[in-house]
């Protein structure tokens, strides 16, 4: 691994509401080197989007980090002052969300929105910032960028808007880009184009990328490393090739086995391998390993004790009691 850009240790996030306090993220640890790409995979309620919001400390109302440490290039994120946080969010850690209609302002021209971060963070004049915006739009493969500077978000297609969101995110040359389901709302051919764009931008600008998705196929195409989340925790982390080809956690194995495949086309009698039951809901987490009610391989400790992440070497960590012998 290269020099750690981001280190997260034992992070916990709590949601407080009328029903009391519910732990959304629990004991999350992950590291990321400069220029690395990490895929975070999980189903609804797994905590993946909460993690995406917790890193730049942009958690919504009622959510708070209750334990753990986070360091960005060695600096304690938890100790940052409000002014330092503002600078960190725009200029060092940038975010792309699923639906760019929510992250772009509907009544501002594209040019203004792409130029604004440079004015705020890099103290550029609006004129200089507009020139940079034009370059950025060109960089995210927007056709006729001069004309598009004057467009409004509603005048563009979903794929085009998501590229604009990418241009806004990149305007201050962040060291870390967090993309939360950036391609989920896009058509398949446009998804592929967008992932190609992200990869090519990363080669050009060298930022580290955390890609949050429910789609293992997206991770397989894009990420060197992957973390699989379940019930607010990482259950398995490792290099994408290792995890996809030799998944070790029963949840990861089940998830990969249950994916429909093009090569099984037209065979009526075939059935997919399934994981029974459904993902747990925050606030109603089962005791012990959170996957145990759905796990075919559960045994004596699973419903009682939560398994730690066993280190299997070679960057692979698996939180499953089956690894007690093989790991440390």
């Amino acid at each position: 691994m290269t020099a750690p850009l981001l280190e997260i240790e034992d992070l916990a996030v709590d949601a407080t509401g009328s029903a009391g306090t519910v732990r959304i993220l629990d004991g999350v640890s992950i590291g990321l080197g400069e220029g690395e790409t990490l895929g975070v995979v999980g189903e609804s309620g797994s905590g993946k989007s909460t993690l995406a919001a917790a890193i730049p400390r942009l958690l919504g109302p009622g959510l708070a980090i209750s334990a753990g440490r986070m360091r960005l290039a060695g600096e304690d994120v938890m100790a940052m002052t409000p002014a330092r946080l503002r600078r960190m969010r725009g200029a060092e850690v940038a975010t792309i969300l699923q639906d760019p209609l929510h992250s772009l302002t509907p009544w501002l021209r594209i040019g203004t929105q792409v130029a604004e971060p440079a004015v705020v963070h890099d103290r550029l004049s609006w004129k200089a910032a507009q020139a940079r915006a034009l370059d950025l739009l060109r960089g995210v493969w927007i056709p006729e960028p001069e004309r598009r500077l004057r467009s409004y978000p509603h005048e563009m297609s979903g794929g085009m808007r998501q590229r604009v969101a990418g241009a806004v995110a990149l305007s201050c040359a962040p060291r870390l880009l967090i993309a939360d389901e950036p391609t989920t709302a896009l058509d398949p051919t446009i998804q592929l184009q967008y992932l190609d764009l992200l990869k090519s931008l990363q080669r050009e600008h060298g930022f580290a990328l955390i890609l949050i998705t429910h789609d293992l196929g997206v991770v397989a195409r894009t990420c060197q490393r992957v973390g699989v989340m379940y019930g607010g925790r990482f259950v398995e982390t490792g290099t994408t090739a290792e995890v996809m080809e030799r998944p070790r956690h029963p949840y990861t194995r089940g998830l990969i086995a249950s994916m429909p495949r093009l090569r099984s086309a037209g065979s009526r009698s075939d059935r997919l391998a399934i994981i029974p039951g459904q993902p747990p809901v925050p606030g109603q987490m089962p005791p012990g390993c959170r996957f145990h009610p759905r796990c075919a391989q559960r045994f004596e400790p699973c419903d009682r004790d939560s398994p730690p992440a066993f280190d299997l070497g070679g960057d692979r960590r698996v939180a499953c009691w089956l690894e007690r012998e093989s790991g440390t």
Partner: protein
Amino acid sequence: MTESQAMIGLDAVVKTYGRAPRIVHAVDGVSLRVDLGETLGIVGESGCGKSTLARMMLGLEPPTSGVMRVSGTDLRALDAGQRRRYRREVQAVFQDPYSSLNPRMRIASTLTEPLVVHRLYSANERRDRARAILERVGLPDDTLSRYPHEFSGGQRQRIAIARALILEPKLIVLDEPISALDVSIRAQVLNILADLRDAFGTGYVFIAHDLAAVATISDRIAVMYLGRIVEIGAAKDVAHDPAHPYTRMLFAAADPTAGTLPPQGEPPSPITPPAGCHFHSRCPFARPDCAAQAPALREVHGRLAACHYAESL
């Protein structure tokens, strides 16, 4: 197979919305048939007309022109009794299991309502049938006395499938039935659909943007682009060895291991589709005459494809 076995037949069906000069050809001359008991998958990007096609098959939208036949009879010529039978024989499951179930009705009423509407069975028999169908989709008995909000998305979609099944239809039109579900739940629902088809001989029209899911469940696949079918044939042929450049692009995007045909451009506006072959503006193999003349669907390697140069690609 003979014409009489076609559950639904479309002949040059067109559906337009709006008025000149802003007319959208949502469906632009589609001819196809859905045979009894078969599963036809329909794929394509947003705006390709697949959902409009589904709504026409369900009788929710009349075609602007062209003929739609149900069991061989022109839809417009059905008498009241035949129309009622058609409404019973063709059922629907939609994408969002949160909005397709009435939140104020207990599941028992939701499931038995179609039987009440069609005046089938006694109250007791209706309840027995509801219980039996729930078991088929893998839900416990006590589901009947509950409300939709007590269920997860996957469970609700099972209830929606049970509701569609209770009339013992010949065909269920499923429009994006799994795209709102969690990944681990999608496989469960696909397996249930496959089991039900084996048990009841029900046919499906299965619309989804998850190509691997469509390929897994379908006997045949139709690929749509801007209102037209560009390729239709056996699922194996279309998924493994696509003939149309658009099908190739679509399936390459779905499978990381497939030979890639990098997608170019975005789908053009359906209000002003490109002349000739609608796909020529994004096609890496396009030649000058592709912009001049629209290719007809014709047989290419055992399936139908609408491309002038399908053989030479």
